[in-house]
C-alpha cells in the first residue's frame, strides 16, 4: 500500500467516523474546544503509533479509537484542572456560551428543539452513563466492545446503559413513570 493510499484511507475513515468520535470526545470534556483538542490529540497518537508499524497501517477499529479518545481526555482533564484555576473567570463565560451548542444535526426547528433537549439531558447524566450511551447509540459498539473500551465488565456496561436510558426518560418525560 502506497503512502498516498494510506492517507486517503485514513481520511476516509475519519470522514466516516469523525462525527461519532467527536461526539464521544464532547461527552468526555466540558466544552467544544476541549473536545476538538482531545480528538485531534487522540488521532495524532493513533497515527503515530500506527505509522511506526511496518504492517497493519490501516486505520484502527472504532473501539481502539474510542479508547484513545478516553485516555487522551483523561490526560487533558488533568491538565485542565491546573489551567482552570488560572482561567476560572473567563472560562465561566465561555462555558455559558458552550451550553447552547447542539451536539446533533437538526433539519427543522422541532428537531432542533428536540436535539437541544437531548443534548442538555445528556450533559446532565453522570459521565459513566453518558459514555455508555454515546458508545452504544452513536458509536454503534456492542456491550463487549464497550466493556473493553471503558475497562468495565460487559454486564456493567449493559446495566449502565439501562440506567442511562431510564435517567434520560425521567429528564425528557418527567410526567411519565
Amino acid at each position, binding site marked *: 500500500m502506497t503512502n498516498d493510499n494510506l492517507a486517503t484511507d485514513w481520511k476516509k475513515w475519519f470522514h466516516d467516523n469523525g462525527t461519532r468520535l467527536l461526539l464521544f470526545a464532547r461527552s468526555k470534556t466540558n466544552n467544544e474546544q476541549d473536545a476538538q483538542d482531545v480528538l485531534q490529540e487522540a488521532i495524532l497518537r493513533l497515527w503515530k503509533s500506527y505509522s511506526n508499524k511496518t504492517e497493519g497501517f490501516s486505520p484502527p477499529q472504532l473501539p481502539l479509537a474510542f479508547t484513545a479518545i478516553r485516555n487522551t481526555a483523561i490526560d487533558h482533564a488533568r491538565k485542565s484542572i491546573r489551567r482552570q484555576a488560572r482561567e476560572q473567570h473567563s472560562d465561566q463565560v465561555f462555558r455559558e456560551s458552550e451550553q447552547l451548542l447542539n451536539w446533533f444535526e437538526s433539519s427543522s426547528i422541532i428537531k432542533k428543539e428536540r436535539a437541544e433537549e437531548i443534548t442538555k439531558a445528556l450533559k446532565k447524566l453522570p459521565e459513566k452513563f453518558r459514555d455508555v450511551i454515546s458508545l452504544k*447509540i452513536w458509536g454503534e459498539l456492542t456491550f463487549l466492545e464497550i466493556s473493553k473500551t471503558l475497562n468495565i465488565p460487559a454486564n456493567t456496561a449493559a446495566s449502565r446503559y439501562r440506567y442511562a436510558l431510564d435517567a434520560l426518560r425521567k429528564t425528557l418525560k418527567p410526567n411519565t413513570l
Partner: protein
Amino acid sequence: MDKELKEIENSLNELKPSNLEREFCEKINGIFDLKTEIKDSKTKNKKIIHLVFTQNSVTAAAILIAFIGVFFAFLNDSNRNNLKSISTKNEGDKNLFVPMKAKNTFEGVSEDEIFLSEDKRPYQPVRYKFSDSFIWKNKADGSLIEMNIPSQRLFYVPIKTD
C-alpha cells in the same frame, strides 16, 4: 426493556451527531498529509539506501574494530593490575620494620665425640654455642619485634697422633 425505554432509545437513534467544522476536518486531515510527506521524502530523496554488500562489510569491520577495542582494553586492564601490585609493594615499604638492634652472645663451648675421617685421621668436634638476638622497629606505629635465634658453630680440630 420496557416500551418507554425503547422509545427513548429509538429517539436517540434518530439523532445524528452534528457535522464537523470544515476547519477542524482540514486540521485532522493535515495530520495524515504531514506524516505521509515525511515518509515520502525519505524514500524519494533516497535517504534510506539499501546496499547489501556494503552493509555486510561494514558490519564485519565494526565487529573487528569492536574486537580489537576489547582486546586492547583487556591488555590495558591487565597492565593496570600489574602497576597496582607494584605500587602496593612500594606503599608496603613504608610499613616495613627497620632493624634497630642485633646482638651476638657467646653462650658456651662443648666437645663432641672424637671421630675418624675417611683418611683415618682423628678429629675433635668443638661446638661453640651462640645466641643471636634481633630487634626491629616499625617507624609508622612504633611497634617492636624481638627475636632470639640460637646458633652453633662446629669446628673440627685435628688431633695429633704423632
